[in-house]
């Protein structure tokens, strides 16, 4: 692409000379034209002395030439230029260059080659044409100048293969590379790692083009050629980012000595590898004509002359190897004043409500008036804003400040005539002094009378910071006995505290509470406790609340009142009440109590007090309510009582309706039975488990008993009682089961019970009279007169037999042996062996002493002395001493010798063994009965017994323990004799 070089200008010729020369030139040209038809002679105005130079960096061909024999001082001419590559015939570019040519002027023109000039020999020629309207007769073309050949100079022609060398382009440019393969046919060239496929341009010259090249790295992109993987040559393509125009260019002064100009340079285009710095910046001021190279890329300082030049016109030029960009600004110096931040800021005479601030403005001197902006902020908002004009030193008085408050004071300044930029804000903290609290405490009380005393709990709300005017250090409580007119300073309570407790007698007391800080006390807050305080009783009234709170209204007690107080507990169910109160004016009889602490399902109790002018509080009304009622959380515990065959009664007591989540409006009794239909006074209700129950409604919350009637006898029922509020019923729980009674069961009871009683009575009577009955019916000693055997004997054998009356006998000896009451029948029916201690001691006639009996049991002998006397007289029944080794007593009926022998053997064997059960029996052996029994065997056994005693033998009862008949030394069995071990008595 051609680029015209600026032609040199010559002085203007004189008009006369020009006219003459034109005429002469025309004549010459006419002659020359005629001659040229004959001789191929060079035409006039042909470019001559063509000289071509090469700028390898810019890839420019620079052409210089002249036009000799210019007929006029200047002519408008067109030069037609042809450029060939490798050979003159290979024209690669043709173009015209139009310019005004002056006489003896050296013309210049440049052409930029796309291909690196080192890769090819270039040829250039040109011809001219006069294109001047003033001289139409000269409009012909000259001859072509001869071809001029040009070679690019390379430092080491033999080694360099690839061009251009280390080219620097902008991002997005197109770059053409060429390489000379020379004799190496297997040369390969690469771009970084990628193989390049070049296009053959001429013989061994190859070329390739990179379009829209990106920035890759500061170190550049490597293009290199290798033969057999050996690098022969390489070059680096440096891609620079495009230089940007500086943005936000402005200048300002802080001290009227230096102008500080700043701008945003944009991206850095620096590529250091080739020693190329990033873009540099130049500042030029047109009025003064001064220029300054800036050291930094984004700011530059300009010295202000002492004469204080008023207006400045700056041009900022950014420049790098490839591009130059400029921006301009023009301004008045006084309009570019940017003051430094104020300093030396101090607060003087700081009081509770005012303070003085002083400050200084540095470096501006008295050149301009400054406007300072002062802002006073507390923690939340800006409270004051002031504008103050100053020269150098500033002073400002703050007033209407709050005591003991931290303020933030901000100040900044600007040139008062033209605000260019404000200085930076400077912030300082101002803390005002404390003052006495300005407001009385809001005090309330809770009175609890007990045992003739008043337990007073005082509450107060802490003063707001606005009223506290400082840090509250303590609270003073002073109580005055209004009856005794005495004053008693009770307590000084350190802060933070919001209440205290007092114990007073039942007199009237005036209590004053003050809050104190380091400066003083607040106005006193008064409250009077009268003797009746705490004893008031008023009826509770239900109110309906909303989520926004409770609307409470009341009727005044008296005309003369100071106001009302409504108090309530914030957390009603908790032990910790957190008493809240609200003061209401004397002319108001309603208020809305709202609190974030109110929760649905919590019962709140509001007490409205009327404050008399004497500050005595009288309870006016007591209201309870919920912000939102909820269904009860639990159901009453119910018992079924009085269960009959057709009814039962449900009863629930102590159901805490106060703790419920709404006002209990009644109960629902749900009864499940096998009956498919409900009674008329109930309705069928579907339960969650898809079963149904008959629901009876109780709409009286005080009713806590319910009679379930009309039931079937001996039937199974289930019931559940739930309470309900306006929000719903309590949840269904476990059903209680009841079974009604049988219809006839009470009749059975009427019969069976008397019968049982009668039987018992009889049994008791029998037991009580058993002795008597026994004696009557089954005596131990049979009455011969009542014995049936007598009648049997009489009837069978001897009708003459009769019973001997004992009264007819004269006893000779009566011996009482250790009489014991109640033992006569002890052995009857005893089936268990008795221990020694259990044996009673017999007390009968001729009863042998128990202690002499054989061990383990005593032997009891009933002796009929009526018969034994004769026997003893005969001596045949003399008692034989029984050895110690004698077997234990065994009483048994000795019926046969075999029995006897067996008994003897067994007795001997079982001498120390137990007495078999069942063998214990009391046998009566009547001597009369023995010989008369007709049992020969028995008689045979008893045959050795002396006949002397044969008529009557001793009638005896032998205890079972004496199972061993005593044998005499002569081996005869005399009789059943009860013997002691060593002794025996007669």
């Amino acid at each position: 692409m051609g680029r015209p070089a600026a032609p040199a200008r010559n002085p203007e010729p004189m008009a006369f000379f020009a006219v003459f020369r034109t005429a002469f030139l025309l004549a010459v040209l006419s002659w020359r034209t005629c001659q040229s038809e004959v001789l191929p002679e060079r035409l006039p105005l042909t470019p001559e002395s063509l000289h071509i130079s090469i700028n390898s960096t810019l890839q420019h061909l620079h052409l210089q030439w002249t036009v000799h024999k210019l007929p006029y001082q200047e002519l408008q001419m067109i030069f037609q230029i042809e450029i060939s590559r490798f050979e003159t015939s290979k024209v690669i570019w043709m173009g015209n260059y139009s310019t005004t040519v002056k006489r003896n002027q050296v013309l210049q023109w440049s052409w930029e080659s796309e291909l690196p000039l080192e890769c090819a020999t270039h040829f250039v020629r040109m011809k001219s044409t006069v294109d001047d309207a003033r001289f139409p007769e000269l409009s012909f073309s000259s001859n072509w100048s001869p071809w001029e050949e040009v070679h690019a100079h390379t430092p080491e022609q033999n080694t360099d293969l690839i061009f251009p060398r280390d080219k620097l382009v902008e991002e997005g440019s197109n770059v053409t590379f060429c390489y000379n393969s020379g004799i190496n046919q297997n040369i390969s060239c690469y771009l970084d790692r990628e193989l390049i496929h070049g296009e053959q341009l001429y013989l061994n010259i190859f070329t390739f083009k990179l379009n829209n090249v990106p920035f890759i790295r500061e170190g550049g992109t490597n293009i290199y050629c290798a033969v057999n993987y050996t690098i022969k040559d390489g070059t680096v393509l440096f891609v620079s980012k495009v230089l940007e125009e500086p943005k936000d260019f402005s200048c300002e002064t802080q001290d009227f000595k230096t102008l500080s100009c700043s701008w945003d340079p944009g991206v850095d285009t620096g590529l250091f590898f080739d020693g190329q710095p990033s873009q540099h910046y130049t500042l030029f001021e047109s009025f003064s004509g001064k220029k300054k190279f800036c050291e930094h890329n984004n700011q530059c300082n300009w010295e202000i002359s002492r004469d204080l030049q008023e207006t400045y016109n700056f041009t900022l030029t950014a420049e790098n190897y490839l591009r130059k960009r400029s921006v301009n600004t023009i301004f008045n110096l006084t309009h570019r004043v940017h003051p430094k931040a104020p300093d030396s800021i101090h607060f003087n005479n700081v009081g509770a409500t005012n303070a003085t601030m002083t400050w200084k403005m540095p470096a501006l001197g008295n050149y301009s008036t400054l406007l300072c902006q002062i802002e006073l902020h507390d923690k939340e908002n800006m409270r004051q804003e002031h504008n103050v004009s100053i020269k150098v030193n500033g002073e400002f008085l703050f007033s209407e400040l709050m005591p003991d408050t931290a303020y933030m004071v901000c100040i900044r300044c600007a040139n008062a005539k033209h605000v260019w930029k404000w200085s930076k804000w400077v912030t300082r903290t101002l803390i005002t002094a404390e003052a006495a609290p300005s407001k009385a405490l809001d005090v309330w009380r809770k009175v609890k009378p007990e045992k003739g005393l008043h337990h007073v709990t005082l509450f107060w709300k802490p003063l707001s910071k606005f009223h506290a005017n400082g840090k509250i250090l303590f609270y003073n409580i002073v109580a005055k006995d209004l009856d005794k007119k005495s004053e008693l300073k009770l307590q000084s309570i350190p802060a933070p505290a919001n209440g205290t407790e007092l114990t007073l007698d039942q007199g009237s007391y005036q209590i004053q509470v003050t809050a104190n800080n380091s400066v003083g006390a607040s106005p006193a807050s008064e409250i009077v406790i009268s003797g009746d305080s705490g004893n008031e009783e008023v009826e509770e009234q239900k109110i309906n609340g909303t989520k926004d709170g409770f609307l409470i209204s009341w009727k005044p007690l008296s005309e003369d009142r100071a106001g009302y107080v409504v108090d309530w507990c914030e957390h009603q169910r908790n032990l910790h009440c957190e008493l809240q109160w609200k003061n209401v004016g004397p002319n108001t009889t309603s208020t809305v109590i709202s609190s974030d602490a109110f929760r649905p399902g919590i019962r709140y109790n509001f007490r409205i007090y009327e404050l008399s002018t004497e500050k005595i509080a009288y309870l006016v009304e007591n209201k309870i309510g919920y912000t939102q009622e909820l269904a009860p959380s639990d159901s009453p515990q119910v018992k079924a009582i009085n269960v009959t065959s057709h009814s039962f009664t449900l009863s629930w007591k102590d159901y805490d309706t106060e703790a419920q989540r709404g006002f209990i409006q009644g109960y629902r009794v749900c009864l499940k039975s096998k009956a498919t239909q409900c009674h008329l006074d109930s309705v069928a209700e579907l339960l969650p488990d898809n079963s149904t129950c008959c629901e009876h409604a109780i709409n009286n919350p005080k009713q806590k008993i319910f009679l379930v009637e009309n039931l079937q006898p001996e039937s199974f029922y289930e019931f559940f009682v739930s309470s309900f509020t306006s929000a719903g019923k309590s949840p269904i729980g476990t059903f209680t089961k009841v079974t009604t009674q049988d219809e006839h069961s009470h009749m059975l009871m009427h019969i069976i019970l008397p019968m049982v009683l009668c039987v018992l009575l009889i049994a008791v009577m029998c037991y009580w009279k058993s002795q008597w009955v026994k004696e009557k019916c089954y005596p131990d000693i049979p009455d011969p007169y009542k014995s049936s055997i007598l009648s049997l004997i009489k009837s069978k054998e001897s009708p003459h037999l009769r019973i001997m009356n004992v009264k007819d006998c004269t006893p000779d000896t009566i011996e009482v042996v250790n009489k014991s009451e109640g033992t006569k029948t002890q052995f009857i029916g005893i089936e268990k062996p008795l221990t020694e201690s259990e044996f009673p001691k017999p007390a009968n006639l001729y009863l042998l002493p128990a202690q002499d009996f054989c061990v383990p049991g005593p032997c009891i002998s009933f002796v009929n002395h009526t018969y034994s006397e004769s026997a003893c007289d005969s001596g045949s029944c003399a008692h034989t001493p029984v050895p110690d080794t004698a077997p234990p007593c065994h009483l048994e009926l000795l019926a046969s010798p075999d029995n006897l022998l067996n008994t003897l053997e067994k007795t001997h064997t079982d001498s120390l063994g137990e007495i078999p059960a069942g063998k214990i029996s009391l046998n009566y052996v009547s001597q009369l009965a023995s010989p008369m029994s007709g049992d020969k065997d028995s008689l045979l056994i008893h045959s050795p017994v002396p006949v002397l005693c044969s008529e009557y033998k001793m009638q005896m009862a032998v205890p079972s323990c004496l199972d061993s008949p005593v044998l005499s030394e002569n081996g005869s069995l005399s009789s059943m004799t009860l013997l002691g071990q060593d002794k025996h008595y007669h």
Partner: protein
Amino acid sequence: MDLRAGDSWGMLACLCTVLWHLPAVPALNRTGDPGPGPSIQKTYDLTRYLEHQLRSLAGTYLNYLGPPFNEPDFNPPRLGAETLPRATVNLEVWRSLNDKLRLTQNYEAYSHLLCYLRGLNRQAATAELRHSLAHFCTSLQGLLGSIAGVMAALGYPLPQPLPGIEPTWAPGPAHSDFLQKMDDFWLLKELQTWLWRSAKDFNRLKKKMQPPAAAVTLHLEAHGF
């Protein structure tokens, strides 16, 4: 091995003999001047540290040069790097070097390499790279001082700077940035080779400067007693 009663007496006698001669073993009886050993050890340690430091620096710098310079098997012709001092040397020649020559070669090599490296630092494009190079130059200067210390301790004079090669000398710019990159590549490579060689040099010197260790070998032959 069959030990008899007589053998035990023999072993005891041998042990007593060894203990008797232990005070005469030089390695166990050093109380005087430590000699150049510690400074050689420090130089060796510094060499190893520089090896580690160069590994990190070379990675960053070769990436900055771009492909093919950061490819592992890249081995360009030396071209302009011929003036760099070569670390590679024939093994026999290296073994035959005396201490003075060995140390002198190290000193001269690092003097030259340091000059090249400072030139490299001036060309680096990024501040991070310049910082790393400056740090490494400081360490290399330390190594040069350390070698000079060893030479002084051994009584060797420092080599005189060659005419035209001043401490501030730097190689002239190559006529192509690509060739310059190849020179930089070779500079780093040669530096790495020199550090390897120096480690071996100082290790050899270290062993040489240490007095022979007490090598007592007891050859017990039971039958011999």
